[in-house]
């Protein structure tokens, strides 16, 4: 019975991917891409990775889908350029790659190092019960530090490209066309979203959840507010900019301040590891939410008539 569900899910994934690649209209592709993201979230549940299901649903299907829909909205014509004519050679290469990959899955040597055991053994010292949060924010916290830097760089480049645009082009009138139903729904939903984001962040230390999922939910709430014409970003332009880098600033400050005590880089003091991690995660959630929102908000909106 299990395998029937898995095979259907797998084939569903392939069908959605085929839908994304071979549908003529781009809008249809993006909608199929969002469906693909949701099915992928289900797949992560089947692979016993609830964290990834949360992240995939919130970031993969949710935010990426919103960004793509926003981009599609500004394309005038959705029709397709005919794809390149030579297709036989790429087709053979891709089929060969797939077969090689699947064949290589069998020729797998017996793993000599079992990392999950190591994680389980040193979990008590990590200060959190949930292994994935322990790996992300304690064992491999340097990766997470660089990853936040990657997010920050994306936000910085977005700002750089948009400072060129005249600020006037980006602000729309106040009570222009605020849709009553959407506005009512959003104003009631926003507190619930904030509550859920904080809950997911808090649960991260002992259950699937954590900074990234919480941040993505926060970003989704902010995007919803922006779509419902609540222009929050105009109230605190500079605060927003500080907020982008705030999470990374605190993470780096904590990472280096422990070095003064003679400990190596990014080593949390034994007794307070849990509190340190929670503090960093709280700040990261706030910052990731703002960065992901600014990536949506900064994207060049208005149609500047192109020159040629």
């Amino acid at each position, binding site marked *: 019975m*299990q395998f029937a569900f*898995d*095979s259907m899910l*797998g084939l569903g*994934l*392939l069908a959605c991917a085929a839908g994304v*690649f071979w549908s003529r209209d*781009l809008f249809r*592709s993006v909608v199929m*891409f969002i469906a*693909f993201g949701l099915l992928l979230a289900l*797949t*992560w549940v*089947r*692979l*016993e990775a609830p*964290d*990834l299901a949360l*992240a995939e649903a919130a970031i*993969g299907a949710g*935010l*990426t889908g919103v*960004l*793509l829909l926003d*981009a599609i909205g*500004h394309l005038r014509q959705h029709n397709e*350029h*005919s*794809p*390149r004519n030579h*297709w036989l050679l*790429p*087709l053979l290469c*891709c089929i060969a*790659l*797939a077969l090689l*990959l699947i064949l290589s*899955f069998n020729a*797998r040597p017996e*793993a000599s190092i079992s*990392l*999950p055991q190591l*994680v389980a053994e040193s979990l008590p010292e990590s200060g959190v019960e949930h292994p*994935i949060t*322990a*790996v*992300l924010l304690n064992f491999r916290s340097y990766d997470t530090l660089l990853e936040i830097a*990657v*997010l920050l*760089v*994306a936000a910085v*480049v977005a700002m750089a*490209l948009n400072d060129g645009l005249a600020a006037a082009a980006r602000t729309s009138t106040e009570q222009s066309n605020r849709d009553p139903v959407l506005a009512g729904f959003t104003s009631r939903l926003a507190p619930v979203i904030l509550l859920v984001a904080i809950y997911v962040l808090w649960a991260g230390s002992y259950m699937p959840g954590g900074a990234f999922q919480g941040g993505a939910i926060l970003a989704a709430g902010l995007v919803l507010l922006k779509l419902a014409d609540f222009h929050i970003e105009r109230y605190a332009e500079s605060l927003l900019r500080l907020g982008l880098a705030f999470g990374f600033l605190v993470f780096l400050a904590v990472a280096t301040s422990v070095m003064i005590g003679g400990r190596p880089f990014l080593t949390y003091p034994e007794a307070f590891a849990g509190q340190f991690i929670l503090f960093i995660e709280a700040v990261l959630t706030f910052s*990731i939410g703002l960065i992901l929102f600014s990536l*949506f908000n900064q*994207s*060049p909106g208005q149609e*500047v008539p*192109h020159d*040629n």
Partner: protein
Amino acid sequence: MTTDFWFACIGAVLIAMALFTFIRHTHLLRRILAFNIMGSGVFLILVGLAQHQRQTDPVPQALVLTGIVVAVAATALALIIFRRFYQLSGRTELDEDQQ
């Protein structure tokens, strides 16, 4: 044919499909879609292969979480640059890719 192995094979097929589209289509948005799905395929292989006939492993799951966030940052950047490019040039593909 455990669940993990099945989804790792699905990941491999997804990568092949995405690569095929990446080569054939020159429309920049479609290439971003292909890149995202190829990333998902790689993540499926990373977790599926690591957990095939072994216990659930938190390390690849943490790596994939990092990968998803990096992928969304790269996609957002690509979209922002594409939209500025589209605004300035009105084209949805790079000049050299014209037929």
